[in-house]
Each structure stands twice: as structure tokens, then as C-alpha cells.
């Protein structure tokens, strides 16, 4: 086996086994910090040893065993250092690895602990990426443009709180499950969106690592909770959004609007998978399951990704879906997106009236001004359109978006 194969085996094991190793150690030792460090040490040992010894036949079991040993070593070291001179209470467990079912439950426990509502949202995101996703602290810091020391502190504080306040390591009760799952999905959607439309000057407009990570983790949740409609909905939404990524930013680094995207560049594999999930949820809805917001958003994206071009798009279907969404989530941002569908169906004049009603709530949101600018342009109100573009450019944080808005403004003539 050559060095490249071993490296690939380590990377694959990291992707497939990291969360499993951390999760099973956390259950065994009741300590996230210890589990994380021991898992990291086990992977470092794999990097050292596998090139000489070869990749073990069951990398997951090898990593779990090695991490268990590292954890016990650390407990012994620390109890000696503390002057307690007592042997670690936990004796080494030579039993074969746990059956897959039990280990999967551990990963679910880990996810619910990292996304616990007693933690701040940013902390949940960081902790989930570290403990479940296996990203390093510098990687997470870079992804969120935070200083490494600040990110390290955030994660350390979270682990300390989980331990001190005894945040439980378990899957919530059936009664609490829907709310807690929706909390987990919110974390994953935030990770996805931060990568999809990264904010901040000087950042790559589309960061591939975060969407890929969010999709990987959502797939994991989907595997663990296959009957949850919103999990399927969020996965479909992510896949159908990600499928359009190749067409979303031009070679010149400018955002490309949906109407102008080269639909041939969309990823047909991701679209097919997303459509399969949406069909699965449509069947469930036909059988009486009320779809949640991610499922409706996925359905809207399925309509877009089924159309050959902008004109071919079934806008009445999209508007009907937005009407359902508004009933579920009366947020002004949803209303703004609904207005965009209204413009395609009933013309910019009707849409403009709907958009103007949102001014109080959305005056600080760049997409509100960008939408107005576009509608005003279509209504031939160039002067007002230019002012709206100016505001949108002022407020937009994404470099590709700023470039796009600037060009549209300068084309007003």
C-alpha cells in the first residue's frame, strides 16, 4: 500500500469514524473533553502507524480501541498528577466493538448534546463541527472568520458547561424530540448557509468546506432518523441548493442570478437525489403528514431545478408553496421571497406593492433593497432603482453579491 492510499484511508476513516469514536468514548467516560482528546490522539497514532503497519481490516474498531487506551492513559496520568495515586476506576474493556445500532445511538446522543438549547447558537455550531464533524479548531475559526484562540475558548467553555451543569448525554424523550431535532437542523442549516453565501470582505464567496460538511452531517442525521420528514426536507433543500453552486458565481467572481445561470452546469446527480427525497415527502404529505418549512423550501427548489429555464418555471406552483410557507412561518423574509414569485406571475407592479409593505421590518436587509431595485428597474423607474441598488450594495456582505449588484446598477444607464 503506497503513501497516498494510506493517506486516503486515514481521511476516509476520519470522515466515517470520528463521530463514532468521540461518541462511544463520551458515553463510556462521561467526558466530552477526554473523548475529544483521546480521539484526536488515536487518529494521530493512525497517521504514524498505518504507513508501516498497514491499514487495519476494521479501522473503526482499531481507532475506538486505540482511543480507549489513550483515554485510560490520560485518566491514570491525571490521577497520579493530582496526587491521588488511585488507579483509574475504569478498567480496560477488551470486549469486541459494540453492535452498530448501539454506536449509532451514541452519535445521535452526541449531536443532541452539542446542539443543546442551553448553549448559545454560535457555540452549538462550533461544538457540532468539532465533536461530530471532526473539524479542527483552526478550521472552524477560519470558516467563521474568528480568531483561533477565541474559537478555542468558546469550545472549551462549552465543554466545561456541559460537564458542570450536567447536560445529559441522551436522545431527548419523544415529547421533546421534535423541538430538539428542529434545533439540530437549525444548526446544520446555519453551517450550510454560512458556507453558501459567506459574508465578510476578502472571503471566498462560496466556501465549499462548510456546505459539504453540513450535507455530510445532515446525511448522518437522516441515516439515524430516517422517518423524520424535516430531516429529509433539509437534506433535499441542501442538495438542490448545492447542485446549482457551479453556476452561481461567474469566472469573474460575480453572483449569477437564477435567470442567467447556465442550467447545464447544475449537478444532475445532486438534483436527482434531491428530487427523490422531495417525492418521498410528497408521498408522505399525500398520506396526511403535514410538511414543515424545510420540506416546503425543498419543494420550491425542486420546482426551480425541474425547469429548463426561467420562463419554463412553474411559478404558480412556487407561489402556492410560498403561500403554505407563509402560513407556517410568517417571517418578512419569506414574504419577500414570495413577492419575487408574484413578480413572475402577476408582474412587477403587484409585487412592488407587496414588497413595500415589508419596509419597516426589512429596511436593514440587503436582499430587500436588491429586490426593490430589480422591480423598480422592470417598472422603468431607473432613478429609484439606482438608489435601491446603492442601499443593497451598502448592506451586502458577500463579495460576489456586491459585484453583481454593482454591475446591475451601472447597467441602468
Amino acid at each position, binding site marked *: 500500500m503506497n503513501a497516498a492510499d494510506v493517506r486516503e484511508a486515514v481521511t476516509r476513516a476520519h470522515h466515517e469514524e470520528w463521530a463514532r469514536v468521540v461518541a462511544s468514548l463520551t458515553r463510556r467516560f462521561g467526558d466530552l473533553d477526554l473523548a475529544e482528546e483521546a480521539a484526536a490522539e488515536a487518529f494521530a497514532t493512525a497517521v504514524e502507524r498505518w504507513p508501516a503497519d498497514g491499514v487495519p481490516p476494521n479501522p473503526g474498531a482499531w481507532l475506538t480501541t486505540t482511543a480507549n487506551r489513550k483515554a485510560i492513559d490520560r485518566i491514570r496520568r491525571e490521577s497520579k498528577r493530582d496526587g491521588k495515586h488511585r488507579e483509574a476506576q475504569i478498567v480496560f474493556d477488551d470486549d469486541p466493538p459494540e453492535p452498530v445500532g448501539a454506536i449509532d445511538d451514541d452519535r445521535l446522543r452526541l449531536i443532541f448534546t452539542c446542539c443543546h438549547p442551553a448553549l448559545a447558537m454560535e457555540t452549538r455550531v462550533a461544538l457540532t463541527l468539532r465533536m461530530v464533524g471532526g473539524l479542527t479548531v483552526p478550521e472552524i475559526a477560519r470558516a467563521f472568520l474568528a480568531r483561533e484562540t477565541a474559537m478555542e475558548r468558546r469550545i472549551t467553555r462549552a465543554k466545561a458547561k456541559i460537564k*458542570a451543569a*450536567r*447536560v445529559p448525554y441522551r436522545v431527548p424523550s419523544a415529547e421533546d424530540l421534535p423541538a430538539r431535532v428542529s434545533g439540530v437542523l437549525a444548526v446544520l442549516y446555519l453551517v450550510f448557509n454560512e458556507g453558501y453565501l459567506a459574508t465578510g470582505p476578502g472571503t471566498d464567496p462560496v466556501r465549499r468546506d462548510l456546505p459539504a460538511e453540513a450535507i455530510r452531517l445532515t446525511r448522518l442525521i437522516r441515516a439515524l432518523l430516517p422517518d423524520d420528514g424535516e430531516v429529509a426536507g433539509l437534506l433535499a433543500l441542501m442538495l438542490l441548493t448545492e447542485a446549482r453552486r457551479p453556476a452561481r458565481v461567474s469566472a469573474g467572481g460575480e453572483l449569477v442570478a437564477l435567470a442567467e445561470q447556465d442550467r447545464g452546469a447544475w449537478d444532475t446527480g445532486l438534483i436527482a437525489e434531491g428530487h427523490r427525497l422531495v417525492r418521498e415527502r410528497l408521498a408522505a404529505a399525500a398520506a396526511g403528514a403535514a410538511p414543515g418549512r424545510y420540506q416546503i423550501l425543498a419543494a420550491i427548489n425542486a420546482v426551480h431545478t425541474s425547469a429548463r429555464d426561467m420562463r419554463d418555471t412553474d411559478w404558480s406552483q412556487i407561489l402556492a408553496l410560498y403561500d403554505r410557507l407563509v402560513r407556517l412561518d410568517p417571517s418578512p423574509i419569506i414574504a419577500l421571497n414570495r413577492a419575487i414569485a408574484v413578480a413572475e406571475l402577476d408582474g412587477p407592479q403587484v409585487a412592488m406593492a407587496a414588497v413595500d409593505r415589508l419596509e419597516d421590518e426589512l429596511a436593514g436587509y440587503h436582499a430587500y433593497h436588491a429586490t426593490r431595485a430589480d422591480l423598480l428597474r422592470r417598472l422603468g423607474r431607473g432613478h429609484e432603482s439606482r438608489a435601491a441598488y446603492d442601499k443593497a450594495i451598502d448592506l451586502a456582505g458577500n463579495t460576489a453579491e456586491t459585484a453583481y449588484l454593482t454591475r446591475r446598477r451601472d447597467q441602468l444607464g
Partner: protein
Amino acid sequence: MRYLVSVIDDKSNPGSTDRQPAISAFNERLIAEGHWVFAGGLADTDAATVVDNRGEQVVFSDGPFVESKEYLAGVWVWEAPDLDVALKLAAEASKICDRKIEVRPFL
């Protein structure tokens, strides 16, 4: 696991004053379910005295150690197996007291 459960009131927007019967009933339940360790309402912060004897001589100062709009109006000590149980009870307590609640673990 023990938690200090603080009832937070707000001087500019105080909670309602008719909660005592409901709180008593809630306390009965805490006792019956094995969560109750201690409970007590506190007198106004004006009644507090801060004592500092770290220096040469003891210094008494009138009033609370920190003046703020929000203040501690009462405390519970609860026994609960984990934070989820404590938070669920605290959510009920907040409704019953008509005030914010802070849950903080003992070491």
C-alpha cells in the same frame, strides 16, 4: 446533582404579586417528586448589607453588592438528575412565578 435556581425580578417591570398560592402548590410538587432541597423568598435589596473584612478592618456597606435593575428575588435549591430535568422544572417555575429564572449548577 444540585442546582441553584434563582428567581430574577425587574425593578422597572416587576412580575405580578399574586403568585404565592401557585408557588406553594409548585413547592408541594417539588417535595413530592424529590426535587426540593431548599426555597426562600428574599427581602428587598435595600435590606442587604455587604461586609468586607479582607483589609485591616471590617467595612460594612449599606445595600446590595451590585446595583442593577434586575435583582435576585428568591432562590430554590433543587436536586435533579441532569440539566434537562432542571430546565423543564425551571420553565414551569418561570410561568408560575411570572419572573425570569436562572439555573446554575453547584460544583
